Structures are given as structure tokens and as C-alpha cells.
């Protein structure tokens, strides 16, 4: 079974400060990890992914994430937050070698973290 935990329901940060949104995962094999962002009443937009290689991955809008295998974590980060970054963030995982090849492309999502950046 695979799962994702986002331990914080909400993260508050002042504009210009660094932000971190936490994510830990559980898979039986090697993980493929993803971050998505959702603005109010919109669908999910892809931010970045980790498949293999460099543990630090860079994505859209200045976001990056660090894969840590020993801690089974994939935290989302940004050096300087903007008010426009305020949104709902989802971490997702799937197994690189799923037992069911038909369902292997489905992602398991965390419950989401609401990010509020204040001016």
C-alpha cells in the first residue's frame, strides 16, 4: 500500500520569508513523488516531481522540493514567499513498480496543506 501524510493543515508565512510545506510518504518500492497546487474553485496544477537522480528538484513559480529517502520525506520549499502563493498544496506518490500495471498510474494524495502568505 502507498500513502502520503501532510502533517500540517495550514502553514502561515509572511511575504518575503522562506516557506516549507511538509510531506512524508510510504511505498513498498521506489517512489515517484509529486507536488500540485490548487487555487480556489480550480483544478490541480502540477508544480514538480521527483523520479530519480538529484534529490533537489526545481519546479514552477520558484518552488523546489527535496527528496530524502532515509526520512521518507519530500518537503516543498520556496526561498521567498509571495502573497500570490496562497493556495492549497497537495503532495502525491505512486510506486515506480506497481503490482497492478493497470492502476499503476493513479496517484495517492495527501489531505492537502493550506498555505497563507500575509503581506
Amino acid at each position, binding site marked *: 500500500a502507498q500513502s502520503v501524510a501532510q502533517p500540517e493543515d495550514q502553514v502561515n508565512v509572511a511575504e518575503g520569508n522562506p516557506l516549507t510545506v511538509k510531506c512524508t510518504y510510504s511505498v513498498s518500492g521506489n517512489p515517484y513523488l509529486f507536488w500540485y497546487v490548487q487555487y480556489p474553485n480550480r*483544478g490541480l496544477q502540477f508544480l514538480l516531481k521527483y523520479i530519480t537522480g538529484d534529490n533537489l528538484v526545481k519546479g514552477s513559480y520558484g518552488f523546489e522540493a527535496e527528496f530524502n529517502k532515509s526520512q521518507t520525506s519530500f518537503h516543498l520549499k520556496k526561498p521567498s514567499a509571495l502573497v500570490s502563493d496562497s493556495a492549497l498544496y497537495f503532495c*502525491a506518490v505512486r510506486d515506480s*513498480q506497481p503490482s497492478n500495471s*493497470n*492502476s499503476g*498510474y*493513479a496517484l495517492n*494524495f495527501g489531505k492537502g496543506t493550506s498555505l497563507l502568505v500575509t503581506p
Partner: protein
Amino acid sequence: DVKVTQSSRYLVKRTGEKVFLECVQDMDHENMFWYRQDPGLGLRLIYFSYDVKMKEKGDIPEGYSVSREKKERFSLILESASTNQTSMYLCASIQAGGPPNTGELFFGEGSRLTVL
């Protein structure tokens, strides 16, 4: 530009009504998915389809069915809507084939359903 279109953004239905949620993708993707999003629960997989006329249950299929008659279209059906099916429904797709697919899902804008 890739696109997943959910034609109904907002719907209000009454208990017991039959509801169709339509999703169309223009990327020639084999795999399509229906998720349900609820506050505090994240996204939960209802059904998915890996080919025309092929479907498999996700984690919460009860009360739902799906139809995939054409590759680009994946419909979610609520045979008899209930108030506990009030939710945001998200459709997604991904290309299949080749070595283990490393791509991300592409999502539609969502359909917010209210059942009274």
C-alpha cells in the same frame, strides 16, 4: 497546450436524481481517472479507465459508475444522487505505455456538485 475539460463546473441536483459528469481530454491519453475531493480528506480515487470500455474501481467506487465509449471521453455517473455525494469531482488523464511512466497527471478544472 494539453487540456482536460469538465463541461459542468457547478451543478445542483436533488436526492435520487441521476447525474452525469463529463470529462474530455485532447491529448490522446489512454488512462483517465475520477477523483473526489473533500475538505480534510484530500483526493480519493473513485474509478479509472486504462482503455476504451475498460474500467477499474478505485478506493471509493460505491454509489458511482463510469463509462468510456471513446478514448477522449470518460463519464462519471451517479445513478441515484445522495447528499453525501456533495463534493468536488476532478477528472485527470495520463499517457500510458513505454517504460514505467514517470509523467504527471493532467487535471480538469473540477465539477462542484451539490445534492439537496
